[in-house]
């Protein structure tokens, strides 16, 4: 676990990020992603490997949280822009906790059914 500026980074997350960056092609894809205007097919054209191989590299970067695919018309643009996701993450984390509580209370109510009155 790494704690930096109040933010805790798990070993799992650190492994994913460093693993993603440990490959030259992925580092190159990441630098293109900072420009945020190339779709997956356009990226694939840049490298002497199969489309599937490039897709796999992008997937590794996605799982590490370093890039995401932003839909733009029929293209899926590979980008480092996380702003949209941050909002969704905050919202979903909150609602996840809310629903955990709600379902727990539902189970409590049903357990009450079994108690002698």
């Amino acid at each position: 676990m790494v704690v930096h500026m109040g933010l805790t980074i798990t070993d799992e997350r650190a492994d994913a990020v460093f693993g993603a960056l440990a490959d030259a092609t992925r580092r190159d894809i990441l630098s293109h992603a900072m420009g945020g205007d190339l779709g997956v097919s356009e990226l694939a054209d840049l490298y002497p490997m199969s489309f599937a191989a490039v897709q796999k590299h992008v997937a590794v970067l996605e799982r590490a949280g370093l890039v995401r695919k932003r839909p733009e018309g029929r293209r899926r643009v590979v980008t480092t822009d996380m702003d949209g996701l941050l909002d969704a993450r905050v919202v979903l984390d909150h609602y996840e906790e809310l629903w955990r509580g709600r379902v727990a209370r539902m189970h409590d109510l049903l357990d009450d059914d079994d108690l002698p009155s």
Partner: protein
Amino acid sequence: MSTVDITKDLENATLIVTSVFAASPDRVWRLWADPRQLERWWGPDPYPATVVDHDLRPGGHVSYYMTGPEGDQHKGYWCVMEVEPPRRLVFEDGFADATGEPDDDLPLSRAEVTIEIVDEVHTRMTIESVYDTTADLEQVLAMGMEEGIRTAVEQIHALLAEG
């Protein structure tokens, strides 16, 4: 022991909540369809809900308010879209202003509840909610933070009481 599975889809701002109950589908349905049951689980602990109107029909409305620790009230509503007892319920939910009017043109979420038989004694409830991340979240987040702080304080008290 009860478990709840939650899957998050960030790109689509969707949450899928699944839990299995040792109860019949009718009994699980009643958690939603009986306002006196609904108000016992809908609001988080520091904000218990009181259900005022509860009309579970397509086009119907549910209105409720949550009462906070300072006596502050937060009104909310459901717009009911589909109802198929005891299997399916679809509604939009959001906050309402003091007069009960929806606070925003945008509801906070659209929820689809599915209740299905697992076996003779078990029922699975699935809730798929799609959230509008551009809706005004301040109130929601403020309530969430308050709950978090409260839980933390309670835990500290409990630890100190252990000695």
